[in-house]
């Protein structure tokens, strides 16, 4: 229907109800998102390190989130 960036915060549940949540629909959504990121930041005539750096930063954040349950235990250690 509409793109996610055009949906206001209050309308989010309504928008979620309209979009396709089957596996094919989700996969199509992921592919569209990746293609729009790729075309905006990487597939440009004079790209720089920014496109890849944002990907790597997102990867680091994702890995942190994946590890969070384990890292949580290190917070109040006396000796690291």
């Amino acid at each position, binding site marked *: 229907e509409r793109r996610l960036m055009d949906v206001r915060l209050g309308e989010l549940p309504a928008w979620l109800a309209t979009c396709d949540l089957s596996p094919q629909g989700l996969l199509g959504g992921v592919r569209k998102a990746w293609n729009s990121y790729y075309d905006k930041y990487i597939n440009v005539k004079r790209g720089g390190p920014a496109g890849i750096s944002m*990907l*790597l930063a997102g*990867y680091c954040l994702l890995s942190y989130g*994946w*590890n969070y*349950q384990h890292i949580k235990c290190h917070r109040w250690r006396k*000796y*690291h």
Partner: protein
Amino acid sequence: MSLSFFDQFTSPCLLGIPLILLSMLFPALLLPTPNSRWITNRLSTLQLWFFHLITKQLMTPLNKNGHKWALILTSLMVLLLATNLLGLLPYTFTPTTQLSMNMALAFPLWLATLLTGLRNQPSISLGHLLPEGTPTLLIPALIMIETTSLLIRPLALGVRLTANLTAGHLLIQLISTATIALLPIMPTVSILTALILLLLTILEVAVAMIQAYVFVLLLSLYLQENI
């Protein structure tokens, strides 16, 4: 809950999906498939140049039959390079620190080179077990030694990669722990340790690239003897 220095090498699970799966799939995002245009973006151009460089370097010593291995050797090189270098980012997981994965890469490929040689040119492959010009009395001993060295190759390939990367990651963790622990106590020594950490990180980047290259180079060498 034991928190030791080796905890960075465990693959944590989130919702049942281990992090190793993500680490293996992520390099695919960084390598775009070239489209049919003549002039593509800078990343595709860089990637194409790099793949040409690797393929030329690996395939020059091989004969025509060996060129069938171009795809697997180049993609193995790119996989190892990408996973090794991505493991140097904070909080990421390096799949090549796991001995199971490196042995799974090394053993079948080495066995493939060995079986190719034994099937197509058995006498030449067996002839590699005895170097030229050895004294007659030494022949039995040398055959045993060369057989042992042949059979230990996959183990060496796998363990070399694992040990180098694991040792590097452990060293980085130890020295950074020392830097942070020393900061309130002796700031000067802490700054020196931070300098060592910087040099070590540069070394680790180099080691990541060199180890990937050595793995694939040795495989192509074993292929050269057998094809």
